[in-house]
């Protein structure tokens, strides 16, 4: 196993910290007195500073230190959290990201500017100081009641994780901090130290028992504060012994200087009932394993190969009379199916991780444009293949920007047309069949069709006066080089972007639907297949070739009777339960040059709103389909979304249902025009 570059590890860690900090800050904006969020932000900043310094990001550490200091004051109630402060730290956070990405770049000027802002945000209030900070809750209240409470006596036993020192925790520092709280008796527990030959110099095997007499007003909180950054991993028992030193435990509580710590008597530790275990200690830790994406992909490939090998085995077993072979083959089939499903789940990520980043985007856009925007997200728990999520990130940013920049009106304009002052952008995700549908909806002015048409005519995308379906007209927006914004803003309107959205979605075998009602808003839906790697397919034969139809698109299979077949010649429609369903003869479409089988079968598939029948020669059956990409050289062939390898080693092509229907409709139109 190769070790990862520590700097890279830090970058990953930093990226996660930024998410935590940003979420904390944005939540704070909604509720400025939320102590939990203040703590979360502070902790995030502190960890970032610490790790940054450890990995040689000095500029980052120094800069972050100032933000941390500011938040520390907020945390202690010396200054209140304000919207300005949060905004300043949000901005500062972007600077920190730059410092992480390019630690050697020239960031001095920006940094100083940001720090000035930060100082202004904190300083203004700091002048008033903690005296006036009365409206603040709990934290401040405790400071004002500094009427020297009675000394309390605490016993604290703690043990840090073995790798604590390797992770940069200094236990001596913690002990020093404890000593600052009051009169301290510290005793080392050395029973866990292994023999010399097994010892790793970096490992920490010593635990400590500390008896502390303190006059702190809130001793428990003060003690826990010392351990705030290591609490999640450590073992700690904290109990109040009694208000005054009692002689009961005196004989054994002899102070031993750390260095001389002899093997101690463990008996004493058991005699007092462990009164209160720290809450954090009992919290079950979420077991997460970080795995590089390539390894997941590798595993996916292996599973793919296994599925192929398994279908070969099934085929062999199917023609064999050996009962035992058949039963083994069925077991393998079940297992590989389960393995495949588990694998798919591994790759699934909730869309929420994608939506999360839009809160910040919207926050920034609202400031830039002066519009008031409310972002609503729905269906965050919908899960999508991670590759899909990664590739959708940029297109969604474009779409949200477009909605805000072109769609939403200024507050006054909205009020004038009887809408709420704040525009609403809704991001939603839901699963439907084998697809996930991600929708961006706004309640803005809608797409101006006249302007779209004028623009398209001006740029030569359509002929003047050309007849277009509404959907076709809207889709023009997705063409390269198209932009309706009269003026280019910093957000959108450069005409790049929308065609990138289209390209990305198509590369994911997805479809874009657009709806827009003038004055009421627009809705853009991206329909993307759930996964890119393995699908359930229906294997069919057309002529001599085998083809796979994605099972998620299949509605039903039926036989096309000879009479219906004859009757339908020339019109290509059949009546299915009182609905007319158009159909395509794949044999003709693919020009197989073979005579049709006697009993033609029809597979009815649905694409969006349309149902279409595909006439095939034979339906072979269910097939676990490992999707192999078509070669770049075959990218002009849009009828197939990929290929797969069958049990006998032959290649079968996977039909791209949506495109196939389009092609079929074109053909029908041509036939109609010709005949």
């Amino acid at each position, binding site marked *: 196993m190769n070790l990862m570059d520590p700097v890279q590890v830090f970058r990953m860690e930093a990226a996660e910290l930024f998410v935590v900090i940003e979420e904390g800050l944005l939540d704070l904006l909604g509720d400025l007195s939320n102590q939990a969020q203040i703590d979360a932000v502070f902790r995030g900043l502190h960890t970032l500073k610490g790790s940054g310094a450890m990995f040689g990001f000095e500029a980052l550490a120094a800069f972050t230190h100032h933000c941390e200091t500011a938040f520390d004051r907020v945390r202690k109630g010396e200054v209140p959290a304000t919207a300005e402060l949060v905004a300043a730290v949000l901005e500062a956070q972007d600077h920190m990201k730059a410092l992480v990405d390019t630690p050697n770049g020239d960031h001095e000027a920006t940094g100083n500017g940001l720090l000035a802002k930060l100082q202004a945000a904190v300083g203004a209030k700091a002048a008033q100081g903690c005296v006036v900070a009365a409206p603040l809750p709990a934290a401040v209240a405790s400071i004002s009641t500094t009427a020297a409470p009675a000394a309390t006596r605490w016993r604290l036993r703690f043990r840090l994780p073995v790798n604590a020192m390797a992770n940069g925790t200094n236990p001596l520092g913690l002990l020093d901090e404890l000593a600052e709280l009051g009169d301290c008796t510290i005793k080392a527990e050395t029973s866990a130290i292994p023999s010399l030959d097994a010892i790793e110099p970096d490992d920490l095997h010593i635990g400590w028992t500390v008896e502390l007499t303190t006059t702190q007003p809130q001793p428990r909180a003060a003690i826990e504060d010392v351990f705030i950054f290591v609490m999640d991993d450590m073992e700690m028992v904290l109990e109040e012994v009694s208000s005054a030193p009692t002689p009961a435990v005196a004989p054994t509580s002899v102070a031993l200087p750390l260095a001389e710590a002899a093997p101690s008597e463990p008996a004493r530790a058991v005699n007092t009932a462990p009164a209160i275990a720290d809450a954090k200690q009992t919290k079950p830790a979420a077991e997460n394993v970080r795995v590089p994406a390539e390894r997941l992909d590798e595993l996916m490939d292996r599973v793919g190969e296994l599925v192929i090998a398994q279908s070969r085995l099934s085929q062999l077993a199917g023609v064999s009379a050996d009962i035992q072979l058949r039963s083994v083959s069925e077991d393998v089939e079940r297992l590989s199916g389960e393995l495949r499903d588990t694998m798919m789940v591994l790759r699934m990520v909730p869309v929420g991780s994608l939506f999360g980043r839009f809160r910040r985007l919207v926050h920034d856009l609202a400031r830039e444009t002066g519009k008031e925007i409310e972002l609503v997200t729905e269906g965050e728990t919908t899960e999508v293949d991670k590759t899909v999520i990664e590739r959708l990130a940029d297109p969604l940013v474009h779409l949200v920007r477009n909605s805000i920049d072109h769609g939403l009106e200024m507050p006054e304009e909205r009020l004038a047309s009887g809408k709420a002052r704040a525009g609403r952008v809704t991001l939603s995700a839901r699963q439907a069949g084998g697809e996930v549908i991600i929708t961006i909806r706004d309640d803005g002015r809608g797409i101006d069709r006249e302007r779209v048409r004028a623009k398209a005519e001006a740029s030569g995308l359509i002929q003047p006066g050309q007849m277009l379906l509404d959907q076709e007209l809207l889709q023009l927006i997705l063409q390269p080089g198209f932009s309706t914004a009269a003026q280019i803003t910093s957000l959108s309107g450069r005409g790049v972007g929308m065609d990138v959205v289209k390209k990305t979605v198509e590369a994911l075998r997805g479809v874009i639907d657009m709806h827009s009602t003038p004055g009421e808003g627009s809705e853009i839906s991206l329909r993307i297949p759930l996964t890119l790697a393995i699908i359930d397919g229906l294997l069919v034969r057309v002529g001599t070739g085998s083809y796979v139809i994605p099972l998620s698109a299949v509605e039903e299979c039926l036989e096309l009777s000879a009479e219906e077949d004859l009757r339908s010649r020339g019109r290509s429609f059949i009546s299915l339960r009182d609905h007319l369903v158009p159909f395509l003869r794949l044999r003709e*479409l693919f020009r197989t040059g073979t005579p049709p089988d006697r009993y033609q079968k029809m597979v009815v598939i649905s694409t969006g709103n349309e149902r279409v029948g595909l006439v095939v020669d034979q339906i072979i059956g269910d097939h676990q389909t490992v999707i192999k990409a078509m*070669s*770049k050289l075959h990218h002009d062939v849009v009828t197939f979304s990929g290929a797969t390898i069958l049990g006998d080693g032959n290649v079968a092509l996977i039909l791209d249902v949506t495109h196939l229907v389009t092609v079929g409709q074109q053909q029908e139109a041509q036939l109609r025009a010709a005949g």
Partner: protein
Amino acid sequence: MNKHLRKHETDLLWRDREDVAVLTFNLNGETFAIDATVVQEILDLLPETRVPGAKAFLGGVINFRGKVIPLADIRLAFGMEAGETTIDSRIIVVQLDIEGEPCLVGIRTDKVYEVTTLAQASSEPPPSVGMRWRADFIDCLVKRNGEFIIVPNLKKIFSVDVTPTGMFFTG
């Protein structure tokens, strides 16, 4: 100047080398050669899956060790007749650089001869007239033992935006 420029644009085989190892093969009785370094493997004929709607010379795919790769018949790209397969027919798998990405392609041949060395000194650019085939698909001609060996310009032949054929409804 013009000649110099042309050399850089189309001369894929030599690239300032005096001698180049090539693999020679037969298509419809003509001897062709391709740079031996791009050759991955020589295969017996494999079951081929037709791709309806693809360009005629890229009309099929094969299963090459678990990968689905296109099988090309460069005769069709040149406008030659597609011959019958014989006992000597082989597939040469080559790795090409298509738009910056490595891409495997199988090339159907009537017979594979040998790996041999060609000298740049005996090479000439394709004559601009009097050719039976598209001149821009030919990198150069190399004279050896009294016959001309054709070095096809695979990059050009497989360049993605080549003649927009392959539509469903050409007829």
